[in-house]
């Protein structure tokens, strides 16, 4: 029996961490971070977990402490957002290249400047090639469920990569919504214990972690990381299927909503997907064959599967919640269209920058995208801004 609750995305994530009960949590409680370490530190103070909580002086140190703890053979977690991730960026790549399966919730918020603390995906996108698995979450339920699945994926012997669970800053992180929680003992059994094959505190097997790696072998080691990311696809599928058996909640690489027969498709991630679903229901009543492809697994990127799922559409819009200042498409757009190109699928696909710095995303804006898709004649204007006040 699941537990009916109402929690914010931050509370739900902290609650998952309590149920996971990691060995070490290292975090810095500044504004760009989240309420997650604050809630979690209460669990520590109340003795509800036996985690070692390391209150560090900044996010760079938070990730460094997680790296140390994980290399020693423990299960380590932190949580961050925005500038916090920017500050830890250097260590984020040390974690993945050292093959340390750290799990980190990332509350997606803008990166300054100008100074803005609200939701967009700039933080995640600026770290998309750091070698972490990245799962995105539409609401508090998905954020919680992704957390429960995270360690099984990251710590799998064929993967051994760190993992971020992303959700939208404020929109879901600070919004109270209904949620179904899983009982403690069931979570504990599902997550299991972490038994690394190699770790620093194993006195029977002295090893070095993070040594210098120059011309002779770096390429080969990077190839191993790439293979691990490929393997993660298989493991994510398996773990998601197990999770479905346990909870009845189905997760895949992406979710299609009325996608089967859709002529006009929006591709997006996180909370906007819910607003798109509402819009689709409205448009379907008017006879418009609108559909959604919501990406859950952004790294590894399921380019082939996405391309095939979009192959019958008449036109597609990819929504990037990042400011486009590259004179080319946004990161999600580029990944989607490169997947389509490789698969030889030629469906007109345009790109929108939207919801930047917390700009509210409305049903009217989404209706505008579907109207644009219906009237799309050519690819003269592939890169667009949604809800722009003036040109």
């Amino acid at each position, binding site marked *: 029996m699941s537990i009916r609750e*109402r929690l914010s995305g931050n509370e739900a994530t902290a609650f998952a961490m309590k149920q996971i009960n990691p060995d070490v949590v290292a975090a810095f409680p500044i504004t760009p971070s989240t309420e997650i370490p604050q809630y979690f530190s209460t669990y520590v103070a109340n003795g509800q977990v036996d985690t070692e909580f390391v209150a560090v002086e900044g996010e760079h140190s938070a990730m460094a402490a997680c790296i140390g703890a994980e290399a020693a053979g423990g299960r380590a977690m932190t949580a961050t957002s925005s500038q916090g991730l920017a500050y830890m960026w250097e260590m984020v790549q040390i974690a993945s290249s050292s093959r340390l399966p750290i799990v980190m919730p990332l509350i997606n918020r803008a990166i300054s400047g100008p100074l803005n603390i609200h939701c967009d995906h700039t933080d995640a996108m600026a770290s998309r090639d750091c070698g972490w698995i990245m799962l995105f979450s539409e609401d508090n339920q998905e954020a919680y469920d992704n957390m429960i699945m995270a360690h099984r994926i990251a710590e799998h012997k064929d993967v051994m990569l760190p993992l971020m669970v992303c959700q939208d800053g404020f929109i879901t992180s*600070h919004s*109270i919504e209904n949620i179904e929680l899983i009982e403690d003992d069931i979570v504990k059994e599902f997550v299991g214990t972490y038994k690394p094959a190699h770790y620093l505190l194993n006195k029977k097997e002295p090893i070095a972690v993070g040594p210098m790696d120059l011309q002779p072998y770096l390429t080969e080691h990077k190839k191993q990381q790439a293979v691990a990311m490929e393997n993660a696809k298989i493991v994510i599928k398996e773990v998601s299927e197990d999770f479905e058996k346990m909870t009845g909640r189905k997760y895949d690489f992406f979710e299609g909503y009325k996608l089967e027969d859709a002529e006009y498709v929006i591709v997006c991630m996180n909370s*906007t997907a819910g*607003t798109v679903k*509402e819009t689709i229901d409205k448009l379907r009543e008017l006879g418009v064959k609108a559909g959604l492809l919501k990406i859950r697994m952004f790294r590894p990127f399921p380019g082939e599967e996405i391309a095939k799922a979009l192959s019958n559409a008449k036109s597609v819009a990819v929504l990037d919640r990042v400011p486009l200042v590259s004179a080319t498409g946004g990161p999600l757009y580029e990944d989607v269209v490169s997947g389509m190109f490789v698969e030889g699928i030629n469906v007109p696909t345009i790109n929108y920058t939207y919801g930047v710095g917390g700009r509210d*995303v*409305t049903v009217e804006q989404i209706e505008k995208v579907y109207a644009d898709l219906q009237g799309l004649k050519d690819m003269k204007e592939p890169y667009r801004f949604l809800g722009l006040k003036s040109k």
Partner: protein
Amino acid sequence: MKDLIEIRWHGRGGQGAKTASLLLADAAFNTGKYIQGFPEYGPERMGAPITAYNRISTKPIRLHSNIYEPDYVVVVDDTLLSSVDVTAGLKEDGAIVINTTRTAEEIRPLLNGYNGKVYSIDAKTISERALGRYFPNTPMLAAIVKVTEIMLVKDFIKDMEGSFKHKFAKKLEVVDGNMKALKMAIEEVKEL
């Protein structure tokens, strides 16, 4: 109750509008509803205008946008009436609940032509009598529950006693005052 009720709160930083929206979400949740309670965060400063939102539904809620056409509006501080367009998009078959001591003749001209129902409540006097201090959010919470009829008043009172005991576990002396403020507000909220 309709399938979906949308409520917008207007207050000033420090008055507890956000907390009130979360308590309302809690109370509705406890009656089996699907709920959302979320503030619109800005640069948070004491006294600055803030907005918070509630969706209360019989079905799961997927929308993740702000509320532009609310069924109800709650105004926690009537000085906002001259600076914020509190009735923007407010449905005529809904209502606005205002913390004020002013009369209908004084209030109506400040509502930008809104013709729906207007309720008033003197949350300041209630709060000061019941709690000895000015915390308008508890009376406003009770007033909006009464006006929206999202649940039976007796269920609400019972539920809030539990919530307050939980929330104020370390200062139980304020529970009675808050309960008194709730009950007074339910009696005193009136249509202008």
